[in-house]
């Protein structure tokens, strides 16, 4: 026994106080004999009020007292939770008062202290701000009275066999209930057993339309059509629900709906976060999640591929794409940031996210100090950190992988064929370009004989302005000052038949420096440079082509070949760089430079004039200032033929294929996980400060927390080892945590209310037997998410009505024991998706890059850098909201208003609020107005189509009927129909009095449609 540090005298004095307290206690407790459950009743109290100073954390432990484990084993067992023990076996004699004397609360110092009113003795001390309630004190005393039995923490226990106490006792009890239980869904048996104890009957099944809408919203996130509802309503076969469930589970929309659930946990976003928050490409990973869920990839594999897809043996491309799970961390692009700091932040986020998603534990607490409540030490934390400290990324997008749009889902054969051809053509193109380039290369200018070209006319043209070029004495031409910009020169010349006149083989352009030009250069640019984008030569109307060009000198990246490549965006220029000067000392820009252009076909003399055009299309005011043109008839040796025609053909074909491929067949670079060859050493970081690694304690190799040490592999090194352990049978948390989260999605609250805390501070499960049997079944049947969902939604418990019940509220406020379903405010995405669905315009395309529905103006008034938001006009305007581009620093406003987080960190549960800003959004936002109008149109079409069939209803009520069926998936009640009709009539009257661009009748229906989209019913899954 561990002694208290107070004196005996004090303790004796206290016992007087205590005795009176105990008398009060026993009279207050009616069911004194009822056993106290350590898990459910005691641990939460101890954890919340005592463990901070008397728990796992050695450093903050006071008075050397531990209350988190049984006293006798306190010194020998350092991992709480996995060791179960009976304290009564370990009673020891000691002079000091014992903290806990099993069976004897009045002799237990703990009880004395908690009952004390003396601030010096009282526990917890008043300064902790954590006083115990009278009930808490009673529970502790009773627990001690009943033997102070410790149990290991429920969540850390294996569920591998159904011998789990709570579960078997309930199963037995259920079995005893007789025949009825045999036909009951196992979930229903277990839930009803607990309800029976409370004296609560379950609720009846929800009416068909509510149930069908619930199944649609929960499984695929859209609304059923009126036809589907009608069909379901009349289907009285026993397996009607099962068939609908199977149909929905096999719909591609399933992967979107549950993919979004997963993407919350992956903290998926389309931007880098922090201040600059630039766009990033992560959507292929989103595609992967959707695709994996649709394929019902077993969750253990799903885990391995995302945490360590890159480390799997012979990792496929898809597995590498999946490894982006932990690349959803933020990148700080701000100037002056230190990459090491944000690499550290990303690793911290990866550790904490892994802990939250798979373990349901708040490992993050141990970043600065050993966890106060849960058995996770600071060293445990940095051993987990070590798994991720191998990462190659460091506040960077690299490393990335190239992905094609649609590739994750498998490309259709036609696209694959196109892509293959594209690849081949790209190779051809590159080869041909190289050849062309080689043919045009700046090799030595051939030595030829030159004769001047005596121009008949020499004009310069700048837009509408046309002026003659100045003719200088030496026969050269100079541009007049009035011509600027992108002026084009036109020189006309006739090469007549004369004696010995041989065909022209080449033309030479001499760019001549001139004192009147800037910097005494040959060009008109400020430094004396020019850019000749093209030289063009015609005889009559026939263009003449050049086979090759040479220049005495070309500026890097502005080779002479660019002057004959028919590309206005490239040209020849003459600046010099250091390398060129090094290679050719004395080289300078502002001197005479010449270019020679060989004609493909020699040009015989003729009376038809020749025209030469010099183009300067690229830069403003980069003209050749002074030049002379000459021709040669000498033979040019061995010209290499440039495959220009073939190249043009290839390029045309490429354009054609690119035109029909998504994103022009171009791939995008998505971030992926990768480890360094030599992982960085990990040390304990005191107080989480990455600049102060505690090297004195030695390196911390990758490993899982000590508390889970039993049966772990001998050595763990990589993320793959971690992933394997997470989904191994040695770790019961993953399955429990995930099952609970799936349950939460289907009921609004998990079986464990604190879905993100399965540690000592968390809530105990309301139905441990349900949780464990589902978790066990899930693992045993191969981790099928679809199977798990199916087994829950086929229960009567899931299918019951969500209507509020007074008797439930009285006995079980909060509906923990599930005597009814819950009304759940739909997620942000579904608010809009439902409207799209009701309006009949939802575009069902699955996957791909993010999209841009209309967004109210002014969203980026408050960001550092405005984002581009090009509102989509085509089908992408009506895609599911999960595809909307997500900027962390300024999310699409609907998201924030309806409680989607900014995904800076992992989100395992969204909050659900009910605010005026939400009202403004659905009532007034452009998106919803547009969709309300579509709903008006859709109801009009429906009435027109059906008029012959249901003729009896007057058109107004018929239309209201349709609108209700489209939006709320049911027919209006008589009262509702009457009220909406009244509203329609008065809206029509008001619209008549307030004319606008919208016709009166349409405005009235628009108002009705708005009402339906704004009802609480529409915004809730019932």
């Amino acid at each position, binding site marked *: 026994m561990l002694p208290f540090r107070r004196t005996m005298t004090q303790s004796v004095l206290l016992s007087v106080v205590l005795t009176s307290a105990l008398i009060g206690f026993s009279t207050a407790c009616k069911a004194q004999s009822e056993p106290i459950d350590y898990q459910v009743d005691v641990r939460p109290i101890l954890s919340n009020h005592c463990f901070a100073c008397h728990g796992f954390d050695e450093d903050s432990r006071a008075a050397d007292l531990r209350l988190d484990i049984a006293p006798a084993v306190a010194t020998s067992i350092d991992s709480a939770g996995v060791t179960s023990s009976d304290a009564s076996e370990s009673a020891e004699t000691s002079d000091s008062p014992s903290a806990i004397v099993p069976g004897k609360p009045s002799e237990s110092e703990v009880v004395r202290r908690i009952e004390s009113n003396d601030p010096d003795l009282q526990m917890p001390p008043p300064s902790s701000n954590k006083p115990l309630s009278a009930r808490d004190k009673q529970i502790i005393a009773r627990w001690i009275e009943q033997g102070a039995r410790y149990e290991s923490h429920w969540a850390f226990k294996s569920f591998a066999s159904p011998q789990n106490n709570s579960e078997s006792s309930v199963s037995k009890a259920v079995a005893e209930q007789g025949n009825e239980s045999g036909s009951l869904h196992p979930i229903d048996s277990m839930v009803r057993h607990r309800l029976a104890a409370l004296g609560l009957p379950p609720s009846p099944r929800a009416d068909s339309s509510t149930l069908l809408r619930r199944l649609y919203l929960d499984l695929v996130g859209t609304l059923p059509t009126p036809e589907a509802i009608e069909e379901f309503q009349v289907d009285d076969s026993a397996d009607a629900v099962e068939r609908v469930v199977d149909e929905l589970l096999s719909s591609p929309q399933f992967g979107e709906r549950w993919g979004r659930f997963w993407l919350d946990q992956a903290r998926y976003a389309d931007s880098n976060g922090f201040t600059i928050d630039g766009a990033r490409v992560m959507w292929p990973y989103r595609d992967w999640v959707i695709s994996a869920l649709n394929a019902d990839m077993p969750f253990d594999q799903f885990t391995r591929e995302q945490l360590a897809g890159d480390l799997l043996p012979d990792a496929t491309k898809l597995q590498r794409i999946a490894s982006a799970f932990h690349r959803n961390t933020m990148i700080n692009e701000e100037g002056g940031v230190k990459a090491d700091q944000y690499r550290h932040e990303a690793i911290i986020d990866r550790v904490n996210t892994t802990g939250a998603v798979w373990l349901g534990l708040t490992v993050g607490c141990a970043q600065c100090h050993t966890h106060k409540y849960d058995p996770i030490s600071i060293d445990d934390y940095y051993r987990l950190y070590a798994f991720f400290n191998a990462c190659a990324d460091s506040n960077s997008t690299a490393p990335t992988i190239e992905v094609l749009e649609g590739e994750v889902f498998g490309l259709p054969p036609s696209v694959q064929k196109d892509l293959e051809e594209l690849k081949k053509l790209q190779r051809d193109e590159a080869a041909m370009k190289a050849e062309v380039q080689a043919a045009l290369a700046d090799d030595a200018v051939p030595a030829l004989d030159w004769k001047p070209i005596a121009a008949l006319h020499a004009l310069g043209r700048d837009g509408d302005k046309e002026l003659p070029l100045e003719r200088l004495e030496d026969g050269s031409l100079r541009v007049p000052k009035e011509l600027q910009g992108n002026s084009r020169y036109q020189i006309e010349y006739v090469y007549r038949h004369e004696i010995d006149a041989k065909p022209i083989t080449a033309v030479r352009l001499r760019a001549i420096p001139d004192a009147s030009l800037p910097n005494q250069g040959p060009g008109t640019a400020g430094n004396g440079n020019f850019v000749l984008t093209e030289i063009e030569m015609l005889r009559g109307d026939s263009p003449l082509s050049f086979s090759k060009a040479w220049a005495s000198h070309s500026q890097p990246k502005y080779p002479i070949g660019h002057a004959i490549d028919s590309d206005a965006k490239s040209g020849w220029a003459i600046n010099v760089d250091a390398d060129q000067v090094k290679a050719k000392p004395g080289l300078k820009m502002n001197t005479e430079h010449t270019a020679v252009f060989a004609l493909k076909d020699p040009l015989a003399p003729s009376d038809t004039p020749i025209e030469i055009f010099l183009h300067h299309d690229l830069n403003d005011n980069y003209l050749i200032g002074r030049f002379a043109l000459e021709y040669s008839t000498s033979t040019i040796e061995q010209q290499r033929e440039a495959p220009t025609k073939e190249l043009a053909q290839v390029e045309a074909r490429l354009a054609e294929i690119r035109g029909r491929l998504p994103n022009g067949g171009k791939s995008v670079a998505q971030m992926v996980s990768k480890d360094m060859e030599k992982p960085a050493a990990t040390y304990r970081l005191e107080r989480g400060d990455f600049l102060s690694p505690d090297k004195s304690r030695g390196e911390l190799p990758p490993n899982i927390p000590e508390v889970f040490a039993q049966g772990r592999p001998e050595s763990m090194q990589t993320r793959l080892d971690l992933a394997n352990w997470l989904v191994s049978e040695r770790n019961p948390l993953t399955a429990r945590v995930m099952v609970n989260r799936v349950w939460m999605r289907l009921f609004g609250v998990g079986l464990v209310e604190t879905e993100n805390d399965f540690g000592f501070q968390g809530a105990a499960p309301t139905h441990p037997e349900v949780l464990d049997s589902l978790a066990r079944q899930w693992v045993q049947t191969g981790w099928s998410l679809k199977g798990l969902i199916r087994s829950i939604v086929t229960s009567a418990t899931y299918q019951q009505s969500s209507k509020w019940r*007074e008797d439930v509220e009285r006995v079980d406020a909060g*509906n923990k024991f599930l005597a009814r379903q819950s009304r759940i405010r739909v997620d942000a995405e579904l608010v809009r998706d439902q409207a799209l669905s009701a309006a009949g315009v939802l575009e069902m395309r699955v996957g791909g890059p993010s999209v841009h529905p209309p967004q109210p103006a002014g969203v980026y008034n408050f960001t550092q850098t405005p984002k581009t938001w090009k509102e989509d006009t085509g089908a992408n305007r009506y895609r599911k909201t999960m595809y909307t581009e997500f900027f962390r620093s300024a999310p699409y406003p609907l998201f924030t208003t309806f409680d989607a987080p900014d995904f*800076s960190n992992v989100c395992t549960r969204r909050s659900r609020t009910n605010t005026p800003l939400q009202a403004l959004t659905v*009532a007034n936002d452009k998106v919803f107005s547009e969709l309300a109008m579509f709903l008006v149109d859709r109801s009009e079409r429906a009435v027109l189509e059906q008029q012959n069939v249901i003729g009896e209803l007057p058109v107004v009520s018929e239309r209201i009927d349709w609108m209700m069926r489209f939006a709320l998936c049911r027919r209006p009640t008589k009262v509702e129909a009457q*009220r*909406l009709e009244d509203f329609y009539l008065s809206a029509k009257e008001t619209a008549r009095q*307030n004319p606008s661009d919208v016709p009166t009748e349409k405005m009235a229906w628009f*108002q009705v449609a708005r009402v339906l989209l704004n009802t609480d019913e529409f915004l809730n899954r019932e």
Partner: protein
Amino acid sequence: MRDSKRYVGGRFVESNSARREFLSASGLGIGAMALQAMLAQDAAAIGASQEAKPLGVLPAFHVPPKVKNVIFLFMAGGPSQLELFEDKPLLREYHGKLPPESITQGRRFAFLPADAKLLGTKRTFQRYGDSGMELSGLLPHHQKIVDKVCWLRGMKTDVFNHGPAKLFMNCGFQTPGRPSMGSWVTYGLGSESKDLPGFVVLQSGPRGPRAGNTLWSAGFLPSRYQGVPLRSQGSPILDLENPAGVTSSMQRSFVDATNAMNQLRYEETMDPEIQTRIAAYETAFAMQSSAPELMRLNDETPETLELYGAEVGKSSFANNCLLARRLVERGVRFVQLYHTDWDHHGGKNADLDEALEKVCAEVDQASAALVLDLERRGLLDETLVIWGGEFGRTPMGEPRDTTGRDHHVDAFTMWLAGGGISKGKLFGKTDDLGFSVIEDQVHVHDLHATVLHLLGIDHERLTYRFQGRDFRLTDVHGRVVQEILA
């Protein structure tokens, strides 16, 4: 009227039985006037009980509140205390010299190279008022309030990049995901304003503050506590305007019809959340007229406009200061103004010469005017005004084209004014080169603890359980700076 809050299905819901009965009885014909009257009544009832009990989740004030509202004038980018508030003759003497290695060792700076030289300011300082506060000539209007505010010259923060440091100053944590101070305060205390959000954000200057929405995020708190940006151009709140062609009376009847349908659904399902939604639609409708009314500065006298240097129809820090006063007058709990850009590293439009003069001119007059105006209206006693940026600037200059300084986290200046704050107090002292605080340091966590204290909150007791841990604004730190309390 019975007003209560209950915890249902994991969240607090407001249930107002009288409203419920009323709506139930009146069916479709809920009159706008009747409901507005009812809301007014609510507001009156709440107004009366304000002294006694917070309107948020806190059941009672932890300490007697000194102020009701907060206006935080956030000088985004980090104003240079060495050009504005702290005269350091020694810096001028050692201008162009390397700082002693013993001082720079272990410090990390965002941009400074290892051989950055000390930079003496070219500004001249003078002492003003009874407090004898030193001010450079850049803030002439501040001379009028030197004895009305408390000067914190020993501020200290932990992070040296803008985004993280702004988050730290707002949320007490350097990465996004935690609630900001305004969210914590409205979570704990609620807001008196029924038709305006309880936490409002305004922006002026060339662009938004770095880190954007995360600065006024509710983090893990329910999103109703997030800051709502009020835009100075166009519609002040997103989606405040009716759809095209819908008049105000049409909107009224739309809200009535929606709520009537909701009421019918309530009778069917009995879900109390439906009552909250009915109230939300009423508030939203009221907001559609109250928010534009708030923005109409032509209600103000020419004298007031002149005091601030505000101009009707313009978007400026001056206009925002005036709006801030109008917001707290209307019971808005937490108002935050961001003004960019104080990030004077040197270089184009970022020098400590003209660029600094420009931003000082934009901010000086209105900051002082806000204090004076609140005071003469008797509002200063119930309002806390905070002035400052995310960090200060280094004693060394940055080697850029023009004069500038880098980010400095170890010592900078802020000021506070309002109820419960010592007037004209100079608190905190830095060393002769301005590197470190040598006396009366106020860490960001301490500032937060003090702000909460003035609002009646013990910073250790305003907590929120998230992922198994009780979080608070001050994390595990923070001390109420008693020395600066009146």
